[in-house]
């Protein structure tokens, strides 16, 4: 490669004032893809609601999904716990080994939607409809008395749910972020 050809892209980047570009001789072996084509993999939900899909659900509908999908096999009747962790309970955080629960610890209600859609139902993750995930989310939040029995969970309401422990976190190493 001759010198002028190497210099040209660098000058172009400087002229356009864009973010640092990869070196001109970077391998560039990645295949372009559109966000639309990533769709099925893009299941991340953020605390501000970014990533939440259309749909909605209530606690009553969630109770039916919970029974229908056999959730009690691991999480117990009324989500009280069984072969795997219980999903209700609010023990005091009065010891360093206290059980961290949705009610006493989790900072964001969106985390609940995300983990149900991502990981449940065992052993067939990512098979629930969006309405079913919203319904299960509402069911568990209502069991924990964080929302009302009649509250509808959707992309607008879920990020607004105030989790009781949300203000009790200290960023350990702020200079690393």
């Amino acid at each position, binding site marked *: 490669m001759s010198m002028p050809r190497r210099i040209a892209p660098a000058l172009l980047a400087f002229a356009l004032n864009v973010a640092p570009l990869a070196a001109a001789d970077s391998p560039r072996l990645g295949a372009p893809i559109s966000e639309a084509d990533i769709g099925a993999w893009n299941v991340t939900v953020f*605390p501000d609601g970014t990533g939440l899909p259309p749909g909605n659900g209530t606690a009553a509908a969630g109770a039916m999904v919970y029974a229908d999908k056999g959730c009690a096999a691991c999480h117990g009747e009324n989500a009280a716990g069984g072969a795997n962790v219980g999903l209700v309970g609010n023990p005091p955080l009065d010891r360093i080994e206290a059980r961290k629960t949705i009610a006493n*610890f989790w900072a964001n209600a969106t985390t609940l939607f995300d983990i149900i859609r991502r990981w449940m139902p065992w052993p067939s993750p990512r098979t629930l409809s969006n309405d079913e995930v919203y319904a299960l989310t509402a069911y568990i939040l209502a069991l924990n008395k964080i929302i009302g029995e009649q509250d509808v969970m959707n992309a607008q309401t879920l990020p607004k749910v105030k989790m009781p422990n949300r203000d009790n*976190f200290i960023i350990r190493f702020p200079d*690393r972020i």
Partner: protein
Amino acid sequence: MRMRGRPVTSPGFEPVAGNGLLDRRILLRSGIALAGGLTGASLARAEPLKDDPWSLAQGTTTAPIEPHSRFEQNVQRTLTNPNGEPRTQHARAPLHLLHGTVTPNELHFTIVHNGSPDIDPAKHRLVIHGMVKQPLVFTLDKLARYPMTTRMAFVECAGNSAPMFSNEPIQATIQALHGLVSNAEWTGVPLSILLDEAGLDPKAKWVIAEGADTGALDRSIPLRKCMDDALIALYQNGERIMPGNGYPMRLLLPGFEGNMNVKWLRRLLVTDQPAMTYFESRNYSPLLPTGKAYKFYFINEVKSFITHPSFGHALEGPGYYDISGLAYSGTGRIARVMVSADAGRSWAEAALQEPRLPMAFTRFRMPWRWDGQPVILQSRAWDEAGNSQPLRAEFVALRGQARTVPNVTAFTNQHYNSITSWGIGSEGEVKHVYA
């Protein structure tokens, strides 16, 4: 075996700290000098030598993959869920039976939440998208053409050493207490190259890394770490990464808690905010005695423990021993390790085995002549950033301890990096003690 009454041939054999710790510089001298200084007068005479049967017979046939000696079959990981029931599986590394600094691949600790996915490397894809100019998809073959970096790095579960939060010392091996850390040579593609190629939005601040496992495990990583020393690791100790460690590719974040080193990596979502995923919201936000909790802990801080001798070992009797252990820090190279044989009243500087590499195991050694009396052995490490391993009293004052003795496999709390103490009894038995 006592020094008493024998001429001292070298200043190095004078104890430099209480209960028989010797000058580390004797480890640097010639073997002759060492033997001359340390050979005891009271050992029984050896039996006459003769050929053993294995020296007179045809040996075993060479196999494509070398099996271990049949006498080493006890060197195994310990499992919490050997039948793969629908819960997390932990495999702890037998650090009390290994030496040096490299953890062999089949003994590297693993924690998997849904079993290891059976990934066809030809079909695996890694996508980078979100706040980038052009989302990109990479195959393993394409990544293998990129400029790669090889480095040593420890990977440690943030919940490693959780039994040390017990209010009483749990009698258990190093494997049970500290076996969720391992050290390997990793080879892979610097993530910064791939992010540069995708073209970062100047507002980007985080990368959400996600695996191809059943639960699509994900964590939020600060972008600055991704642009600093993060690797898309493809090789582990020279061979392709083991399934339990993320075959065919994992994120390697040197010094950062194990769970963030996402295995079976398939997606990197560039964003301006953390996702507050399940694992960062719950498991890896350590609860404090005040009822508040740390979040975004990330770093495995400077730590050390003596592996030889340790619980499960027994000393044969008074005389010379090579105290040895591991030190490592998520904030750089190990600068210094001090060893005490009198519960911290006096300390001597240990010899550090080269190479000392950042965010990697350093092996330390301490020559010691045991007089047969009860002693308490401890190690304490410092890193090049000036951080020191906290004493237990300091650590407990800040982080607390459990009110009862938890199950040894329970994750009582996270990020323990204080001292481990071994009490040696007069019979040579090793107990775990707090001191």
